[in-house]
């Protein structure tokens, strides 16, 4: 932290962390079956110390451990992953309008999910297929970009567009041939993005790739700043920009593909949250990465609570993030010209 801003940033981080925990507690309580904080405490105590007699409201343990907790964990992980991925991509492509799916991770994952649904794979099979295709799409885009002789970042964006459009064409084709009674609605609903059917298994599945993507980025957080500098200047400063970019692509892809594989397409989080983080915490990745993790997680958790509560059914999360994200972005667009020093 630099000398003058250090204290105010610390205070902002404390507020953000408090919001984070408050959001978690609220999310535990709210829902069709309310779990009181007292119940939560008792259940957790029993879970860890294994006391004999259950003293909580009957059924609360099932709701809390099997439904609410996995869902909260998944929202936090997905939100944190998407906003971190967006945050590093925006710096790497030196373009604040970039979102995590720029290299085709989301469309690839969407195709993988659609393919799995078409071939009748089970719930978990869909996640795995989606994750693998997300990774494959980016690998393909990266390979294509290396074939081009254009500037590396431009080549990557173009390759990402090519691969994305190929995979989305593939998804459309699958929708066309899918059985309209069962498969087509399943695919459509999946693509809208939702965390309603999250299970502990899903959380266990995505937690590793997300950690594997997040930790290197956290460790490299200072160096990420150098990617925002003009390529030649950064190389002349002694930075191996190609290696650094490759690490960023791998990490961001792990984050995005893992998120999309369990949640479906959730737009706007990876685009809008980094902007808010920059507004509050400045441009330095030393603060930006931790901020994006906390802010993204908290944001998606709150939005997911809304998705659970607004209607008696479930609102697809992707729709809600767009409804919230678009006006927020409009606000940024209008006030963005002003300097917030």
């Amino acid at each position, binding site marked *: 932290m*630099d000398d003058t801003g250090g204290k105010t940033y610390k205070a902002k981080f404390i507020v953000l962390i408090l919001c984070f925990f408050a959001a978690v507690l609220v999310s535990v309580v709210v829902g069709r079956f309310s779990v009181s904080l007292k119940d939560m405490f008792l259940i957790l105590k029993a879970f860890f110390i294994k006391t004999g007699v259950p003293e909580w409201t009957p059924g609360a343990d099932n709701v809390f451990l099997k439904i609410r907790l996995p869902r909260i964990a998944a929202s936090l992980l997905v939100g944190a992953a998407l906003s971190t991925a967006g945050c590093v991509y925006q710096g790497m492509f030196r*373009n604040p309008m970039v979102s995590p799916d720029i290299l085709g991770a989301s469309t690839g994952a969407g195709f993988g999910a659609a393919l799995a649904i078409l071939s009748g794979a089970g719930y978990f099979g869909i996640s795995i297929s989606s994750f693998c295709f997300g990774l494959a799409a980016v690998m393909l885009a990266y390979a294509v970009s290396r074939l081009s002789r254009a500037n590396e970042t431009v080549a990557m964006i173009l390759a990402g567009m090519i691969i994305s459009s190929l995979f989305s064409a593939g998804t459309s084709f699958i929708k066309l041939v899918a059985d309209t009674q069962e498969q087509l609605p399943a695919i459509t609903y999946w693509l809208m993005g939702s965390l309603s059917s999250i299970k502990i298994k899903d959380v266990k599945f995505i937690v590793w790739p997300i950690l594997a993507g997040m930790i290197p980025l956290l460790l490299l*957080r*200072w160096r990420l700043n150098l990617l*925002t500098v003009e390529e030649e200047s950064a*190389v*002349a*400063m002694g930075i191996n920009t190609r290696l650094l970019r490759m690490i960023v692509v791998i990490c961001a892809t792990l984050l995005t593909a893992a998120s999309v594989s369990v949640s479906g397409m959730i737009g706007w989080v990876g685009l809008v949250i980094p902007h808010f983080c920059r507004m509050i915490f400045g*441009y*330095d990745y030393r603060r930006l990465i931790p901020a994006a993790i906390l802010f993204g997680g908290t944001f998606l958790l709150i939005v997911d609570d809304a998705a659970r509560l607004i209607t008696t059914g479930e609102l697809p999360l992707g729709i809600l993030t767009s409804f919230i994200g678009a006006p927020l972005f409009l606000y940024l667009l209008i006030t963005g010209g002003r300097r917030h020093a």
Partner: protein
Amino acid sequence: MLEVKDLSFSYGSRRVLDQVSFTACTGEVIAVLGANGAGKSTLFKCILGLLKPSSGNIFLSGKDIRKLTRAEIAEKAAYIPQTETPVFNYTVFDSVLMGTTGTLSPLKIPGEKQKNRTAKALEMMSISYLKDRGINEISGGERQLAFLARALAQGSHLLLMDEPTANLDYGNQQMVMNRVRKLAEQEYMILLSTHNPEHALQYADRVLVVKDQRIFAYGRTGEVLTESLIRKVYGIDVVITEAEVGGKKINSCIPIPTPEPAIPEAVKRYDQGQ
């Protein structure tokens, strides 16, 4: 000390530099002149190790750059790009701090040592007062000084500046050139490309002229930068005059207006509908 020996470079089959050789010492400002596309930037990029020469050697403080790592080259030579507006509005302090990254091991975060170097670099450029401002909120001239400070924080004593005064207003141009001059007195060596012979005349100890892929002229400014040289390089007639201000001689270069504006051949052909 910089030594370039028989340096050749080609983009594909197009030769840009052909057997270029020269040496330069610390404590000097060297202005690199030449028409657009003469190979000035290519020369800089070869010295910085950004481009691999087809043949020839470059020695930085006696060491062949081919035997140095990226970070080692960065410790010896720094690059100051044309003033660009960065996309992200980092503070001036953080922007300069980035210069210290090359010597830092990859997972390290700049510590006290790096911050002190940054503060010192800002002080040397007399822009400490800007440290908390956004890099996009200061003037172009100030930004150029910040980039210079970044190069100083990098720790290298050879500074390569690509048209440092392009896009700057008149006052900022002189301000930047004055600071560059002062750096030379502090044992830095500055190579700067420029399109303005005035800057070479007023601020450079030596002039290096690149033309037809070769070094056309190299030597002390007063001896090399003559009216006939400018005529040969740029195809314009000038007169170099001398003024005395406070006992100091200042040279200036004035283009002679031609009665009929010289229109390049290509434009003539176009006008004639050929």
